[in-house]
């Protein structure tokens, strides 16, 4: 069913192909512009930024802003840079992604292969969870975390991110497993395989593409979250996005834009790497199921 490219393509003329490349490159420019602005300004001394042209290349090249953002910039009262906050984010993101992905896979499995009356209603309700604006859950979620004794802790953050990622992960896996041949499941069932055995031995091994999509989606969303991170973290669990915001958004103070841009790129590196490294599998994964209604 899959193929590398459209066979329609073979019939394009030279002129048409030139046009296609021109359009594609135009969009490359559009997508790269903000990154270009961030990069060139992160390599300039602050004076040069103050003087004006944001689009010009630096007259004096410097990596000092990068070093500062990494390890010596003032974030809160400590001049420690963004470095320590990476670990905080990883401690939170990795378990949250793992748990929400696993639960999503199980949910998708149940919702497609062990259907019951009202399963679509359950699924619909879970899907609607994707659309709740996070600002409204802040106060009640804080109350519940407080009651559970998880306020201001890493497990609390993991719980929150898992909860609000479930809608998406369930959606991805459900759509993927929907296309999975049910005959295989039935055969395994007749052979006496249990619920979990079927999941582990039959579904999971062929879930690679959709796991990639889900992990990328969850990783990006959780890594970039600010609202939950700032509200439910404590002094020792502040995630990178909150630290970055602290670096760039100080209300009254000198703004070192070159350091800010360097910091922004640093903070985004893990997600950028995930996208670039797994970009190929991403489309493949989407193809395998996530886009099928």
């Amino acid at each position, binding site marked *: 069913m899959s193929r590398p490219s459209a066979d329609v393509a073979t019939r394009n003329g030279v002129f048409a192909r030139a046009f296609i490349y021109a359009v594609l490159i135009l969009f490359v420019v559009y997508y790269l512009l903000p990154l270009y602005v961030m990069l060139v300004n992160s390599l300039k001394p602050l004076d040069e930024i103050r*003087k004006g042209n944001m689009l010009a290349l630096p007259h004096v090249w410097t990596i000092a802003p990068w070093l500062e953002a990494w390890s010596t910039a003032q974030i809160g009262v400590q001049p420690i840079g963004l470095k320590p906050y990476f670990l905080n984010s990883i401690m939170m993101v990795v378990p949250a992604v793992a748990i929400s992905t696993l639960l999503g896979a199980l949910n998708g499995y149940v919702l497609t292969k062990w259907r019951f009356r009202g399963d679509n209603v359950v699924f619909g309700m879970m899907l609607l969870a994707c659309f709740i604006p996070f600002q409204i859950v802040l106060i009640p979620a804080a109350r519940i975390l407080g009651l559970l004794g998880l306020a201001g802790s890493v497990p609390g953050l993991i719980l929150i991110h898992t909860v609000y990622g479930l809608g998406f992960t369930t959606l991805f896996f459900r759509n993927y497993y929907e296309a999975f041949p049910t005959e295989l499941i039935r055969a395994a069932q007749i052979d006496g395989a249990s619920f979990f055995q079927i999941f582990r031995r039959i579904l999971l091994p062929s879930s690679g593409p959709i796991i990639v999509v889900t992990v990328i989606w969850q990783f990006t969303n959780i890594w970039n979250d600010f609202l939950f991170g700032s509200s*439910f973290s404590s002094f020792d669990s502040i995630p990178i996005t909150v630290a970055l915001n602290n670096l760039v958004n100080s209300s*009254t103070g000198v703004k070192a834009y070159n350091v800010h841009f360097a910091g922004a790129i640093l903070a985004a590196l893990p997600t950028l790497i995930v996208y670039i490294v797994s970009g190929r599998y991403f489309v493949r994964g989407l193809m395998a199921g996530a886009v099928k209604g």
Partner: protein
Amino acid sequence: MLRKLLIGTLLATGLTAGYAVTTQAAGESVEVLHWWTSGGEAAALNVLKKKLESQGITWKDMPVAGGGGEQAMAALRARVTAGDPPTAVQALGFDITDWAKQGVVGDLDSVAGKEGWDKVIPAALQKFAKFDGKWIAAPVNVHSTNWIWINKKALDAAGGKAPETWDELIAVLDKMKANGIIPIVGGGNAWNAATMFDSMVLSLGTDFYQKSLIDLDPEALGSDKMVEAFTRLSKLRSYVDDNFSGREWNLDSAMVIDGKAGMQIMGDWAKGEFVNAGKKPGEDFVCIRFPGTQGAVTFNSDMFMMFKVGKDKQAAQLQMASDIEDPAFQSSFNVVKGSAPARTDVPDTAFDACGKKAIKDLAEANEKGTLLGSMSQGYASPAAIKNAMYDVITREYNGDLDPKAAAEALVDAVAAAQ
């Protein structure tokens, strides 16, 4: 209770007060939620952290920047709702009173009483730092908003005399315009325009400021004088370049520093930008009160509001409050921050010319009763009303409303927010 008794006993047995308090709080910690998260102000706060650490108290830093404290206040709500409030929280004006009304704040009376805060902290600040007669917050500094920061060279080219009246100001602006620079910059967002508006209203009289922005008298809010205040704001806007919108105040400052622009109306946190760029007050730039407002001060005091914490953290909390009001800290912190000390008895020797002026003006205004809360910084009215005013001011500044319509809209907006 027991702790107080213990301190008293130790004092009585001849140990020094410092030692007594230190041992009390040693091994404890304070968790501090604030939005001084970068640059000089964060470095200034580090002075406090070091002092506490020297007393054996751990500083747990919980910075949340953004929106002039808006994000921090969202985080604070989550913390309080979860039953896990920080020890101390940076807060402004009516927000402190609002939190106090929720019954979640601590009590600093034991320290305040012992150290005589009542006598050295201006009454106008006490109105916010105390609730129901009890000290609940420790004021760190006093900023004020009715300042103009002028590039000295640009001023010299425009006659060299700092304007003392509205007409003189307009004359200087005209000359700067003729000299080919942008005469004045500011108002890039609602907060920035509102900061300028403080001075517009104040320049029409302290009584008028009190009646309209603090007492919220509808008659004053909709009066011809208010129309005049908006007219003045628009007049200044006509001297601002067309790219002002969305520009942060510090970029405005950079334009004044570079001589691209002549002047800027902004609170004295702007001084940090000038000093950081290596500029000296009097030589490179001039700081004056907005024409017609000398003698009055629209203040804005950063305070640390103390929350109700467990017994195990109380001694550290009190120690932190005591350290904040320590005159040596007040001096060293505020020299860096660009503000005046919150205590009136701190010597001004370490401060630069603008800092000395700020301290002198503050003392004078305090005595004359013209130390008024800044509307733009949340010291004149609660958040809902302040922001309702922001809406009107920024719309007027951006040409969405004319001065007359703005004065009417102000009356409606304030009524709707009450």
